[in-house]
């Protein structure tokens, strides 16, 4: 009994010594321990606010901070570099991002093609042994062009080439063309990735353009006369490029109707079918009346012909007087 009393007394003493860490609330707070956030939806004490706002807010916030930190102290702790740390859970309060979710980088045309065909990049060594020069020659970069010059100090003129043509110059220009084409393709890839519409670049060097491009160029060039290519002769078996009506002068674009929805198409077809199946003879009243009149007239005329001439003439008034108005309804024209 003594021990119990002693313990009770001790606990009472400690309780007196320290202020409590418990707080009672009518409604529980909403916590987001991950971002150290607590939302107290309890109604505020209007009287206390009006009396002393700052003190009331201090005591209210103290209680809420106490509740929040009680939650934090409940979390598992660790010791990192002689400081006690808690592992915070992921925060639940949803905040907007500052930039949209990153999207994967769009592939270039070549990368897409390689992916479809399963082409994988092979790693080439930077240096390779040159048998003619008897030394290691780099694949690209520093000292490569010097090695090339040493190696190809003379070029054989091809058999049916112009002997006065500079082969070195030709090679240089070809290289420049390739570089320019690559740059253009790089820009095309950037434009495609960023969804930018760029104007057509027209025809490139015939050495590097595709047959399709050449075809398009020929079609456009032919129609670029004053008479829109009407009097221009065609080569035998020459085809016109397609899909370039926008840039071909005088070309009329074939209009495509928008696709009809399935339900509408069905309705239309059924209407056609019904009109055929439920065909009734059309009654053209005007035509029928005319025919009737015509028939009557012909009958009358035949009657006239068959009757003897100079027969009894009844009711034939002389002088053809116009019927006077108001003199009997039976005779005379109806006036409106």
């Amino acid at each position, binding site marked *: 009994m003594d021990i119990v009393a002693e313990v009770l007394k001790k606990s009472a003493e400690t309780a007196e010594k320290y202020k*409590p860490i418990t707080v009672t609330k009518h409604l529980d707070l909403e916590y987001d321990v991950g*971002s*150290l956030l607590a939302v107290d939806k309890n109604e505020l004490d209007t009287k206390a606010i009006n009396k002393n706002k700052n003190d009331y*807010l201090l005591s209210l916030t103290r209680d809420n901070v106490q509740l929040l930190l009680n939650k934090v102290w409940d979390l598992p702790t660790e010791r990192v570099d002689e400081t006690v740390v808690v592992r915070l859970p992921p925060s639940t309060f949803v905040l907007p991002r500052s930039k949209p979710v990153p999207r994967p980088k769009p592939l270039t045309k070549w990368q897409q093609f390689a992916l479809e065909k399963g082409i994988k990049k092979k790693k080439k060594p930077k240096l390779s042994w040159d048998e003619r020069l008897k030394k290691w020659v780099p694949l690209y970069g520093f000292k490569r062009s010097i090695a090339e010059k040493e190696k190809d100090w003379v070029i054989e003129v091809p058999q049916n080439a112009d002997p006065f043509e500079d082969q070195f110059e030709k090679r240089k220009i070809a290289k420049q063309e390739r570089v320019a084409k690559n740059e253009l393709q790089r820009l095309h890839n950037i434009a495609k990735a960023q969804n930018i519409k760029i104007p057509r670049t027209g025809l490139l060097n015939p050495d590097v353009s595709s047959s399709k491009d050449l075809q398009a160029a020929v079609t456009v060039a032919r129609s670029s006369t004053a008479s829109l290519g009407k009097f221009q002769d065609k080569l035998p078996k020459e085809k016109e490029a397609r899909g370039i009506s926008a840039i071909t002068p005088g070309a009329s674009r074939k209009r495509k109707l928008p696709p009809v929805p399935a339900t509408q198409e069905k309705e239309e077809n059924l209407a056609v079918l019904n009109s055929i199946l439920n065909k009734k003879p059309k009654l053209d009243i005007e035509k029928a009346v005319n025919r009737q009149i015509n028939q009557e007239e012909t009958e009358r005329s035949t009657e006239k012909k068959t009757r003897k001439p100079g027969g009894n003439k009844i009711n034939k008034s002389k002088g053809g007087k116009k019927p006077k108005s108001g003199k009997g309804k039976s005779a005379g024209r109806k006036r409106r």
Partner: protein
Amino acid sequence: MSVIKRVVKATTRKGKKVLTSREPQLVEGPKRAAFFWGRKTSELVRNLLKDLYVLKKPDAIFLNKKNNITVFENVTPVEAICKKYETPLFAMGSHSKKRPNNVVFGRMFNYSLLDMVELGIDTYEGLKDFAGAKVTLGVKPCLIFNGPWDQSDELKQLKSIFVDLFHKEHVEQLSLQGLEHAISFTVTPEGKIAVRSYKVLLKKSGLRTPRIELEEIGPRFDMSLRRSKLPSEDLMKQACKKPKELKVIKKKNIDKDALGNTKGRIHIGKQEIYKIQTRKMKGLKKTAREKKMEQLLKQQEKSTTNNVQKTKKMRIEIVE
């Protein structure tokens, strides 16, 4: 010819680093904030912005110059400032006859305006007006929201903006000694917003959890709502989208019981009971003839693996 859309390509290594850091990131760092003012400001608003700048400091920029901006009429200059300094958050102060002591808090998404709320400052006491030690720079504060913050859309959005502005960065580990700052945001019954900032004092409680005491360090200000521009639902949804890579995929058939033991359910294939080795007995032993036949069968099977039909026939014969 005019430039269609400039494609910026870095020329230096450092420049490339900067450009890549500006690209959308999977996990975003702390949001930086820009503090600046418009055509005319009062002393009060300037001091308030400076105090907020001090609280936000490592991730903030303060522009000490007049700007000819009326943000509710035209947001483009603000968007330009936020793009230039890479600050998705901004606070703009102004002072006019119509709207005295005005502060606009706003956010950007993808360099264009997401939302903003205009507040009028009613009373203000700065950091300097409170004696005593202040909190350490860059410490993560406890955010306490009191009162009916859910009563209107403006207040909801303002709450989100305040959390965004003050919550600093999400951290996985937090030092318990680092819990030294608390900011309370209260919506009073008259609809005013009271902001108080306190230093947290951890006192002994006789238990593991300490007893909390607060000491006000400022700034202390009361505000009232003015104009606001809320985001469309689509835009907010787009902005709050969580990347697919960060979504936690639940592992199937694994759960934990109350004692903390991990329990899993696994699926075993069909049991082949005919192949199980049972107890060996003399009576079940194969005779010499049976063994020989089996060997023969195996050899034949090996020789005519491609002709299954034949072996089947043979087996039937042997059995007979």
